[in-house]
């Protein structure tokens, strides 16, 4: 699972064709959903599959395929200096976080102590976190309207 998740993430960024990159991203998201299953959080895992793979990955794939032009795949090759700097930065952050994870006493936690069901999540969302839920609904609606407006205003452009 770990290999699937991390390997697909690398494929997503390094694949030559951006379509394969999108498929790699979907694989990585699927791996994270599988890790959620392992963590005894099936509701979040199914949510992740539905939203990320069902909506976001498909949205990206359709956008890439509908606006299929050479320039989308084309990418100015990064200079080797940038590449080395990026690899070093990513590696440094990974090592720092990994050392922090291993060096502390967090590895003593080997059993899952909280197994909240979707009933508990529902109670939490609909009582204490209800304002967040409502705000999130407004944000989602605003973002959808914003995205539609952006693409629609652009379509009128050539007619002017």
């Amino acid at each position, binding site marked *: 699972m770990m290999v699937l998740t*991390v390997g697909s993430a690398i494929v997503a*960024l390094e694949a030559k064709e951006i379509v394969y990159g*999108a498929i790699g991203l979907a694989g990585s998201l699927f791996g994270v959903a599988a890790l959620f299953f392992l*963590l005894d959080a099936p509701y979040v895992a199914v949510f992740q599959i539905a939203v990320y793979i069902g909506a976001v990955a498909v949205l990206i794939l359709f*956008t890439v395929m509908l606006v299929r032009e050479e*320039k989308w795949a084309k990418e100015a090759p990064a200079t080797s200096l940038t590449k080395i700097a990026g690899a070093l930065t990513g590696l440094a952050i990974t090592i720092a976080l*990994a050392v922090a994870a291993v060096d502390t006493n967090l590895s003593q936690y080997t059993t899952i102590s909280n197994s909240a069901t979707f009933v508990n999540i529902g109670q939490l969302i609909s009582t204490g976190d209800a304002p967040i839920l409502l705000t999130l609904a407004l944000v*989602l609606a605003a973002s959808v309207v914003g*995205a539609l407006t952006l693409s629609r205003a652009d379509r009128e452009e050539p007619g002017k």
Partner: protein
Amino acid sequence: MNSLSDFMLVSAMLFGIGVYGLVTKRNALRLLFAVEIMINAANLNFIAFGQYLPFEGSAQTALPNAFGQTFVLFSIALAAAEAAVILAIVVVAYRLHRDVDVSELKSLEG
């Protein structure tokens, strides 16, 4: 693959890959991929900590701790909205500039 630090290792690797992508890539879509990977790394950490660490408050309320899962649900919904908006912006930028290379989008600079 059954202790908290294992999941933290995966999360650290994903986050490092995301940072690498953000630094090296110039294609706007690749940047979106990198950001999504980093968001997933953060979500994984939230769930892992929420599931493994004991929660004192749950003894009084007799409810299992669902805060980590709830937070990740909100985070996933926000990430979906963000991806939709970014894709719309990328499509518009492409139609205006005929390019998705972020270093070529000079008109967006201040």
